[in-house]
């Protein structure tokens, strides 16, 4: 899932923030869900496109969603605008991955 060796910057004075390894959008969404929900990798690997998110997972409250969007921006190097976010986006894991994939190719 991880493509190594891209966006490597010269190491002047420590590591630059943009020096991240490229993730597929789906891998990035799984990693963020793992961090936010405090799950292990196996549990998040079991998420399918139909897995319900907002409303079904108590840890995923509106504050967690705020952090989730910013983390996706950071990990995929994208910007998510206010009007792109609606309730449908967080209904299922599949919706969120589809959105991340759409943003990543923009």
């Amino acid at each position, binding site marked *: 899932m991880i493509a190594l060796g891209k966006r490597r910057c010269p190491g002047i004075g420590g590591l630059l923030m943009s020096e991240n390894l490229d993730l597929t959008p789906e891998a990035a969404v799984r990693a963020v869900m793992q961090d936010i929900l405090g799950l292990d990798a196996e549990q998040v690997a079991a998420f399918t496109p139909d897995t319900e998110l907002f409303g079904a997972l108590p840890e995923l409250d509106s*504050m967690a969603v*705020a952090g989730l969007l910013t983390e996706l921006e950071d990990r995929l190097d994208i910007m998510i605008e206010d009007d792109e976010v609606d309730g449908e986006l967080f209904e299922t894991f599949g919706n969120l991955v589809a959105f991340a994939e759409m943003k990543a190719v923009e």
Partner: protein
Amino acid sequence: MTATLEYSRYEFQGNDELCLRVGGHHAKSILLIPPLFDEMNRMRRMLVDVMRLLDTNGIGSALPDLPGTNESLFRQEHASLAVWRQALTECSHILPECKHIASFRGGCLIDDFADDLPKWRLSPAKGNALLRTMMRTRMASDKEAGLSTNMVQLTDEAQQGAVNLAGNRISASMFSELQDAVPALSDDVRTAQLETSAHKGDIKLPGSALWLRAEPDEDLLLSGAIATDLASWILS
């Protein structure tokens, strides 16, 4: 982990600010700079666990309150990154034994108050990312109250004086500083990232991103890994 917790005080602009101390009698000590805003609350337990573990390794530590946070009487809307750097400078005057700095998340944005000390950073955060999360939290709570707010409106409101974001009074200067703030480049930095992070680091640590959780929590796997790496870094 039976280390004794004590409080020191440092003076800043006429107020006494508190600074949590563990193992002040040790020859070596480290100054910890906490995460900023809500992330600090979610990680405080973990940071204090790190302090206790460092003590068992013969290393003292200090965790200052930033003005406007915790018990501080400083008005939060007067706080800014520049103010916090000044406060850390004042705090460091009462801690001459601290020859190393460890900063966490947003704390990495203000660890450049001391150019000459070696720095260790956990998952450094950009100011704009902290700001966008706080704005999104405000927008979510507004939405629940039947209001519609967007980031442009909140940015305009901040420029009028101060804006309330996720329970924080953010001044115009704090808002503007956060928009552009990134951790300062330095010749002597060791960067730690979590194993789940896509960012490269000098070391990857096991454990969970407590700063992203809905509630504060502890993670002894992470605090243990941090204390172990800090101890070998300080003693090397």
